[in-house]
């Protein structure tokens, strides 16, 4: 029979597989569940269905642009801070360059007259930082894909052909160019999307996910990733992943050079209290910057997962596909080893399966990279019931 709301044909179940509308025939047992307050019951089930459209899609895109800029700004600040600290505390009063009197064309008469402090480390750090930020923005997706050892999908067997087709279908549904498809050789099911904009986007799934999911579940997962691309979540997360990695490196390096400096300053000039206070302030900032970056990355990834679930369901008009896929992901508890920590916020489910992810409330919202699976499944199922 055909669904009265959306015209989908596989409408033999109590609910339409495509839009989630209830069957208009009153003998369906589901009707009793739905006739609770809040739902209008089977009487309205024949109305044309509309999923809740995420009205804040453009808000989310704007927010992502702002956040990307913020992460890059924070990174640059850290880099400049590091450079300045090296100038101030390691080189001392600054590396001096001699200024020459007289004409440079008469070297015989020229002699150095005064020294001008030149912040060589700050300028060098600024240059390196700009380069890194630019590379992170341009090639962050390559880094992320390489770090998880993703290889381009070879459409040789039926299952990989199916994946390629599903990606094409979701690209058509969202009206975006088809992203490149990659496979990660890992038996644990997981998936992520990366790329700085929809024209340079990639979707990677693990071998485990490919083997575990049926067609509709695969469609749900790909729709979720496609929504990340459409919302520009991938840009924010890719830049954050690339720059956070660099921040952590810089952080390690500065911690080492810092301890060397403390001994040195107390030995030589006695330093003065002001110098030490400044130095401590510097160290605190350097230590806190990557933490701050990580906190931002995590606190924003929870809400974006809910949004990607919702707009993914809007693409397939089949919330149950993704719900069923999430249930399978929830049951798989082995960590996804191939996916590094920096890539974790990009994934459809936390590759490390942190227990924190199951919690709710302020701290869980702040620190967990992913919302609780049970909650995500519940919301999707509600969507399927309330589809009318």
């Amino acid at each position, binding site marked *: *029979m*055909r669904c009265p709301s959306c*015209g989908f*044909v*596989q409408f033999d179940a109590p609910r339409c597989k495509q839009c989630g509308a209830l069957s208009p025939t009153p003998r369906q047992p589901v009707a009793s569940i739905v006739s609770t307050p809040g739902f209008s019951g089977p009487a309205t089930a024949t109305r044309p269905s509309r999923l809740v459209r995420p009205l804040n899609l453009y808000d989310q895109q704007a927010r992502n642009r702002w956040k990307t800029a913020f992460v890059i700004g924070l990174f640059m600040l850290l880099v400049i801070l590091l450079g300045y600290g090296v100038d101030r505390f390691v080189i001392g009063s600054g590396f001096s360059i001699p200024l020459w009197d007289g004409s440079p064309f008469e070297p015989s008469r020229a002699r150095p007259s005064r020294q001008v402090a030149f912040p060589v480390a700050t300028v060098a750090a600024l240059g390196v930082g700009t380069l890194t930020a630019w590379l992170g923005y341009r090639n962050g997706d390559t880094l992320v894909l390489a770090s998880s050892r993703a290889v381009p999908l070879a459409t040789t067997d*039926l299952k990989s*052909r*199916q994946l390629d*087709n*599903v990606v*094409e*279908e*979701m690209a*058509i*549904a*969202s*009206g975006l160019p088809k992203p490149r498809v990659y496979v990660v050789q890992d038996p644990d099911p997981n998936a992520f999307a990366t790329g700085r904009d929809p024209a340079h986007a990639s979707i990677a799934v693990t071998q485990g996910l490919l083997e575990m999911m*049926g*067609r*509709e579940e695969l469609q749900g997962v790909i729709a979720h990733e496609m929504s990340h691309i459409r919302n520009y979540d991938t840009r924010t997360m890719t830049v954050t992943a690339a720059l956070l990695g660099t921040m952590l490196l810089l952080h390690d390096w500065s911690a080492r050079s810092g301890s060397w400096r403390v001994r040195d300053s107390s030995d030589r000039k006695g330093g003065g209290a002001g110098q030490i206070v400044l130095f401590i302030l510097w160290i605190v900032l350097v230590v806190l910057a990557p933490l701050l970056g990580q906190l931002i990355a995590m606190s924003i990834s929870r809400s974006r997962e809910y949004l990607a679930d919702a707009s993914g369901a809007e*693409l397939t*008009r089949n919330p149950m596909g993704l719900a069923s896929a999430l249930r399978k992901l929830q049951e798989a508890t082995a960590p996804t080893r191939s996916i590094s920590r920096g890539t974790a916020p990009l994934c459809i489910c936390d590759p490390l399966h942190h227990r924190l992810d199951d919690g709710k409330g302020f701290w869980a919202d702040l620190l967990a990279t992913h919302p609780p699976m049970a909650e995500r499944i519940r919301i999707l199922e509600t969507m399927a019931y309330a589809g009318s």
Partner: protein
Amino acid sequence: MAFYLTLGIVVLILVWLVVMYNGLISLKNQVQNAWQQIDVQLKRRHDLIPNLVNAVKGAMQFERDTLERVIGARNRAVSAKGAQEAAAAEGQLGQALSRLFALMENYPDLKSSHNVLQLQEELTSTENRIGFARQLYNDLVARYNIKQQVFPTNLMAAGMGFALADYFRIEEAEKASPRVDLSLN
């Protein structure tokens, strides 16, 4: 003062007109693009069907009738002219195809053929792509039409040469057709 006020209002109205016009043009092109996408996928459907029929012909000799109906519907759909005729022909083709798929279930040999499974996957995907392309097209048409109909754009849209776009409706013939689950779960 009054002069500057008038100038300001005129500039504001001009800016609004430009923004409105550009927004409508952008949506109009997206609608046309989505329509092209449906066409592309229908073409893909037409190209795949002869391959499928050839692949199953040997095993399904007794279903000559069904196979001929599929090929006939496909040829009518290819040569259909105009949106009305094309929609009707595509509807009949969908019906004939679903009947073929249902009958294929009776031939276990086909299920073990890699070639047939692959063609079945491609056709499943094509049916989905047609559906999703139609979904995107209809969503865009809705946005385009709403944009033209809201106040105050409705005062200007028709005068600028914009017209409401038609939805891609499912033909009654196709609506009545049963279809089988083709997913390879």
